Each structure stands twice: as structure tokens, then as C-alpha cells.
């Protein structure tokens, strides 16, 4: 329970289903550390914790704050910082889901006798009629769907996952909250990565890894030096702002070279790619398909999944070939494979 409306309504729906519900908020980091000042750390802020507590009280369920600062640091933040250092654009929410929420938190919950954990994600889990395997599907609200961040859940994790708001649209969730008289009904959505509330990822990475701020060259595709930059962690493929260059046509980051600390820029057209390699692929059904499959592949959170052929390879890798070129495929983000609204699987873009 983050204190937001989605997990609050999720908790309400679980409690109303007759299940024995226990509310848990995760304390994930200490906000005093950053630019945040005096704040008490948690998933979000002290106010959010109070909100979660008030909602649990309103629902008549117990509520606890579990401290996962150390695990969050080791499993999510360390990866976030290291990915930027290797010129990739990390996706910490997906790491948090598979490595913390549906792993460490699930273990803790089982230790308390729970059989499942419910979250406020907009996604759905059901079972394949033919095989009985668990399926992960997009949430019913297409605009809010969060299945992209859940692609790395295994069958065992999905078996214990409940997404009660996945069948609802956001307006329906808010209406439910109002109907239940939850004071968070009109609370605004959070958008930033929770542990960088000011959105300044570069400053966060520099605090954690001062070496990241080593300068380098900005070049064009032919290696011609166009300028200098203050650290590769400041750049992501497709980025236009913050290059500090003036040119006739707009320039975009085409790729970042971690070894030479080179940021390569070029015109928008040069951002287009028709294929990408994907590693650490998770096939939701448990096994990779026997051969290439047609799928719609989504390469970032807000990307409209595009038609492609996904070819499973050895060592949990895969190759994705799009029917049409895709702009700004960023290493470190996830490529998630869909057939209609069913997640076949996904992996990390190389």
C-alpha cells in the first residue's frame, strides 16, 4: 500500500472479497539522504504512509510498515546506478517488481501465513484454458496498463500475484474509492521514479557514483567531435535536450559508448532501427516458443507496441525484428512481447 488510490482500492477489493487481508507498506529508502531534506523515507513520503495507514484503518484491516531499505538499495538502486554507468537507461520499477515485491515481500508475506500478495498494478493474471499456465495480461484500462513493468514475473510469482484493479479503469478506481469514502480518492498519480522525487536522475547517480560524472566527447556518427559532455549518465538514446550543441537540424543521442565515454549524436532519421537484441528473456509460460513468433513488441513504457517477429535464441536471449523501423530503442529498457493483450514474455534491450 503506497498510500495512492490504486493500491488503496486494491486493498479494499481484497478485503471485500472475504479474504483475510493485511495491509503492508514498504519503506524503501531514506529520503533524508538526497535533496529531499528532512523527509522520513518510505515508498514515497511520510504523508503517503499516513494515507496508507488511514485507508487500512478505514477498511478495518491491520497495517504494517516493512523496512526494505537494504534490499531496495542492493536490488534496485545499485542496479539503477550501475546501468547508467554502462550507458543504459534502467527500468527500476520492473526490477522492484520481480526482485523485491514478488520476491522478498512475497517471502515475508508467506512467513506470516499469506498465500498471495495483491498490488495496485493495472494488469491482469488468469490461466490459459488449454495448459493451465498463468497468463499475464494488460490491464483493462489501456492508458494505465502496467504489464510492461511486470514482464519478468515467473509462473511461481504470478501464481501468488493478485491485481484487483486490473479489471478496472482509472475513473472506475477513483469512483470505487469515493464510494468507499477513502480520503485518497482524488489524490494525484505519481509519475517520477519514487526514489528520485525531483526527477533529477543525473544528480542522483552522481551522488551514488561520483565517477559517473567523468566528461567525454560528443561526436557525430563519423567520429567528428562536436562538443564535450559532463558524464554519460546524463544521456539516453533519443534524447534531444541537454546536448549543448547548436546545429541547423535538431540532433539526438544515437548511442552512448561506455568505454570511450563517447556520446554519438545525429539527425532524427538516424534513430530508426528495425531490430534489437534482448537478453535475460523471461517467457511467461515458462518455456520459450519452439521458433520465431509474431508479436507486438513494446520498447518503453508509453510506446505503442509494434508488430515484430521475435526469435528465441540460446542463453535466454532473443532477437526482435520489427516490421517498421522504431525510433530510439534504448539499451537497458525492456522489450516486452504481446499477442493481443497477453504478455508472452520480455527481456532487457542490449
Amino acid at each position, binding site marked *: 500500500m503506497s498510500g495512492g488510490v490504486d493500491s488503496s482500492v486494491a486493498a479494499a477489493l481484497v478485503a471485500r472479497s472475504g479474504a483475510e487481508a493485511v495491509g503492508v507498506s514498504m519503506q524503501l529508502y531514506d529520503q533524508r539522504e538526497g535533496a529531499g531534506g528532512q523527509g522520513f523515507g518510505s515508498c514515497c513520503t511520510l504523508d503517503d504512509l499516513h494515507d496508507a495507514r488511514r485507508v487500512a484503518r478505514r477498511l478495518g484491516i*491491520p497495517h504494517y510498515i*516493512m*523496512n526494505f531499505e537494504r534490499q531496495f538499495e542492493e536490488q534496485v538502486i545499485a542496479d539503477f546506478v550501475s546501468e547508467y554507468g554502462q550507458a543504459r537507461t534502467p527500468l527500476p520499477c520492473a526490477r522492484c517488481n520481480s526482485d523485491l515485491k514478488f520476491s522478498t515481500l512475497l517471502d515475508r508475506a508467506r512467513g506470516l501465513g499469506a498465500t498471495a500478495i495483491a498490488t495496485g498494478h493495472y494488469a491482469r493474471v488468469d490461466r490459459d484454458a488449454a495448459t493451465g499456465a498463468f497468463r499475464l495480461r494488460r490491464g483493462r484500462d489501456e492508458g494505465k496498463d502496467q504489464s510492461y513493468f511486470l514482464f519478468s514475473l515467473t509462473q511461481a510469482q504470478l501464481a501468488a500475484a493478485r491485481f484487483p484493479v486490473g479489471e478496472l479503469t482509472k475513473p472506475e478506481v477513483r469512483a470505487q474509492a469515493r464510494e468507499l469514502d477513502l480520503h485518497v480518492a482524488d489524490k494525484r498519480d505519481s509519475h517520477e521514479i519514487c526514489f528520485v522525487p525531483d526527477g533529477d536522475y543525473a544528480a542522483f547517480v552522481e551522488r551514488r557514483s561520483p565517477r559517473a560524472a567523468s566528461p567525454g566527447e560528443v561526436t557525430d556518427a563519423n567520429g567528428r567531435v562536436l562538443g564535450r559532455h559532463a558524464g554519460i549518465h546524463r544521456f539516453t538514446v533519443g534524447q534531444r535536450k541537454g546536448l549543448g550543441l547548436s546545429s541547423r537540424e535538431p540532433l539526438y543521442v544515437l548511442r552512448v559508448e561506455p568505454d570511450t565515454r563517447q556520446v554519438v549524436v545525429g539527425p532524427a532519421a538516424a534513430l530508426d532501427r528495425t531490430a534489437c537484441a534482448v537478453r535475460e528473456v523471461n517467457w511467461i509460460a515458462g518455456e520459450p516458443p519452439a521458433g520465431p513468433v509474431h508479436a507486438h513488441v513494446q520498447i518503453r513504457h508509453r510506446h505503442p507496441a509494434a508488430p515484430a517477429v521475435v526469435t528465441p535464441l540460446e542463453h535466454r536471449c532473443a532477437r526482435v525484428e520489427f516490421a517498421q523501423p522504431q525510433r530510439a530503442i534504448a539499451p537497458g529498457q525492456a522489450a516486452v512481447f504481446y499477442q493481443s493483450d497477453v504478455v508472452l514474455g520480455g527481456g532487457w534491450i542490449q
Partner: protein
Amino acid sequence: MLRSLRGMRIYLDHNATTPPHPEVVEAVARAMTDLVGNPSSVHEFGQTARAALDQARAEVAALIGGAPAEVVFTAGGTEANNFAIRGAAAAAEGSERTEIVTTTIEHESVLNTVRALGRRNWTMTLLPVDESGIVEPSALERVISNRSALVSVMHANNEIGTMQPLEALSRIAHAHGALMHTDAVQSAGKVPVAVHDLGVDLLSMSGHKFYGPKGTGALWIRRGTRLGPLLTGGRQERNRRAGTENLPGLVGLGVAAALAARRIEAETARLSALRDALEEGILRQVPGTAVNGARTPRVPNTCNISFERIEAESLLIALDLEGIAVSTGSACSSGTLEPSHVLTAMGLGPARAQSSLRFSLGAGNTQAHIDRVFEVLPSAVEKLRRLAPAAVAG
């Protein structure tokens, strides 16, 4: 899970707070109805209120063997500690004495107050404790000097219950001309406390730790002790604590003090037998357990036990879901990752400190409650060890 919603709830967290005694509740309610005057007023309304306040003061003084005129009412233990430390510092200002000596295991209301003064020209000296949580008088002997203004050492520790050798510490402080303060929040009302035997100059106590109302407390100030005021304003509490008194609360505090004084002997014997049964039972029935802190001298209601390979936070929740309320230490520090500063000061590693639970018993507890703990705890520990491998680093 959630048996608690149907079954009995067992409260084993009396060091956090105690439920007010029914006679206290009644006295507070009656005071709110009957004692409508301001104790400082001259008229009959005021005189009736004043008489009730005097009565409460006499009862609090009697509980600790002091004189009523030496008792200043406060809004609880934290305020009493602030008053003692800031008041002693204010009185010593401009003198050669610029040091405050305290210990590593004090309550936050002492530690953070001394730290605050430490940022304003005061020297903060922390006495260590041994592995049983006791301050050796020789440790004070080594650091004290004629620059020491105040020595503040708690009487009983809130997390482990161990009691400090205050008589010896007071003698050392006085031999060097320093004032001696004790935070007796966890002992006053629980064990006999006699200010003159302890030899202290200042003693803090809190009403809600012995079945009185929350938000009430007192600082006992030995007659003749110079202390600056904490709150300035009207002339209440002999110019030492301005503001119209919390009369209903303080009447309740007086009743709680009188009740405690009457029952302390019998209750001490009863609770220590119950506590020992709980402690022995846990050590016997749950493998990988150990008691933290000296087992004597200790307040009779407290035990602190570590459970190998257990995240105390999870065990606390598991017990709460079964209707058993315990604590991982100080109520004020829950929700933080930092291992208990008390257990750390005793030399316990973070793994052991983070696997420790405090059980603190009180008036409502019976053998049936202890039996219920034995029913629930061993299997809860077993289950957590099996299903949620502790991620506590060594």
C-alpha cells in the same frame, strides 16, 4: 492468520505505554466535570482546583520519597528530561562547567537534548556500557571533572530493563560538584524508587508508564537545586513551568501514583515471576534464543530476547496477527532500519540487534497470556525461519 480479530488480544508492550487504571479514568473524568476552576485563581473555584493539584503533588512525591514542593508537573517524561537537562545547562551558563555526561543507552529524549546542547558550546560525553547494559561507575570516574555540569544516567532502560548503579554514580558526580539527573520513566511506579537513597538531584517520571494518563509527568528537583525554567510565562509551578496546569491529567497522575505506591511490592513479585516464566519458557521452547542485557538488576516486567535468523520486524507482525502485542525496542524508533542503539552499545552485532524483541508485562497480564505466547511463538518462529529466510547480514 488474523485469529486476533476473533480471539483475545494480549498486550505485552507496557514499556511503551500502559492502559490507564479504571480509578484513574474515573478520577480524570470527574476532574473534568467538577474541577472547572483555574488552580491559580483566588476564588472558591480556583481553591478547589488548587487543592486537587496539591493532593496529586503529594501523591507523586510520596511515590518517590520526595517532598511535594520538589515536584514540578510536566507534560510527560520527554518534557521532564528536557527540563532537567536544559534547566541544568541554563543554570550553569557562564560558569566553568561546560560538559554534560550521559550514556550511550539513554532514551532519545535525553540523547537528542544533550546533542542539541552539544551544537551550542556544550561538550557531550557519552559513557559506555558493558555487554550486559550496565554503566560501570569507574567509567564515570574516568571522565568526570570540575568542568562537568550534569551527569544524566537512566534508572532502568526501556529496551532491556536493566538498572544502573545510581547510588555509586551519584556519589561520583557530587564529589566533582556536578548535578545528578536520572530518567526514571521506566522505573518509577514499577519498582520502589527513593530519591534520597539514589542520591540524585533530578528525577524524571511519566504518568502513562504506570497506568496514569498520557501527557502527564513530573520532574523531581531536590530542594536547593538551581535550574532554569523550560517554559516562561505565568508563575505556575513555582515559576518553573509556566502555563495553566493540565488539571484532569495531573489528578489522574496523582491517583496512578497512589495506586502504584500501594501495589508496588505485590506487583513486583507477581510480575517478576510471570516474566521469568515467560523468559525461561521461550529460551527452552525456541531454539536459537538468548536474553539481552543483565538479568539482574532489572525491572520486573521486562525481557529482551534475540531470535537467531529472525527479522524481528516480521516476528512482531506475526505475533500481532495472532493478537500478541510486543515491540522491537523503543516505540519511537520503529520504522527505521537502524539497529537499536541500546543493543548496539552493548556490543551486539546488527544481526542480533535486528532479531530482538522486547516483551514488557503489566497489570493485566496473567499466566494464561504467557501460555498463549508459548502456543503461538515457537511455531511462528519456525515458520518464519522456514519461509522467510532472514536477510539479516552477520
